[in-house]
């Protein structure tokens, strides 16, 4: 329970700090960089390191590369759709999340599972 509370607290703080930075930094395209900050990793890796050690974290980081590649594809598609069709941003970003899942699963199956 303490672990969950600690994760929640650290995650909330890290995400809030990066979101605020993204809002303050101008131009907006540079502020957008903070939307892909390693917030979850920064919030969880220290606890994971403490619990499981360096090899475990290195394994997680290897898979995080695939997650980041999937995030790149997803963000590019969201940007394209928003620019070309101008639908509602939240609906678009949520509706296109399967792209991240499909890319991440595909990269895992083709490259990282071996």
């Amino acid at each position: 329970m303490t672990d969950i509370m600690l994760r929640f607290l650290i995650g909330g703080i890290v995400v809030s700090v990066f979101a605020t930075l993204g809002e303050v930094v101008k131009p907006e395209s540079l502020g957008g960089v903070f939307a892909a900050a390693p917030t979850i990793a920064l919030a969880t890796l220290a606890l994971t390191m403490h619990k499981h050690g360096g090899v475990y974290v290195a394994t997680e980081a290897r898979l995080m590369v695939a997650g980041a590649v999937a995030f790149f594809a997803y963000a590019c598609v969201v940007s394209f759709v928003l620019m070309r069709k101008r639908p509602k941003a939240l609906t678009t970003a949520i509706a296109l999340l399967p792209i991240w899942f499909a890319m991440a699963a595909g990269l895992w199956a083709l490259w990282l599972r071996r």
Partner: protein
Amino acid sequence: MRLNLRFDSLKQTKPAEYVSRFVFGGLVTVLAGFVADHFGPVIGGLFLAFPGIFPAGVSLVEKHKTLRETAEGKLGTWSARGQASVEATGASVGTLGLMEFAVVLWQGLPTHNFPSMLFTAGGMWIAVSCLFWWIRERM
């Protein structure tokens, strides 16, 4: 293009939005930890780069731009969604830094100590992101 910090943009964010951002960030982090604990470092690692707060981020950009445009007497929806697209483009550049962050930890951690690798990875994230942002601005 000039880089600057505009703290006045923080005034547009309501206290409830700060709270929801904190709660959402906390929940996504707990969920990522839960996935790692139950499915191991392989699936857990993928979720370290899950775009959990991205939808809320682009939505907030759209909302704030719409409010600004409405205050100026314009409709604003079209340009607000364009602004959200710019935010998403910035995020796509940021993911290149995120990849570098992960590569540094993946390659460095078994042999180097954690604090120094985390510091290096963080530095590489910001350096690579800014470099690719700069290149993209000049394309």
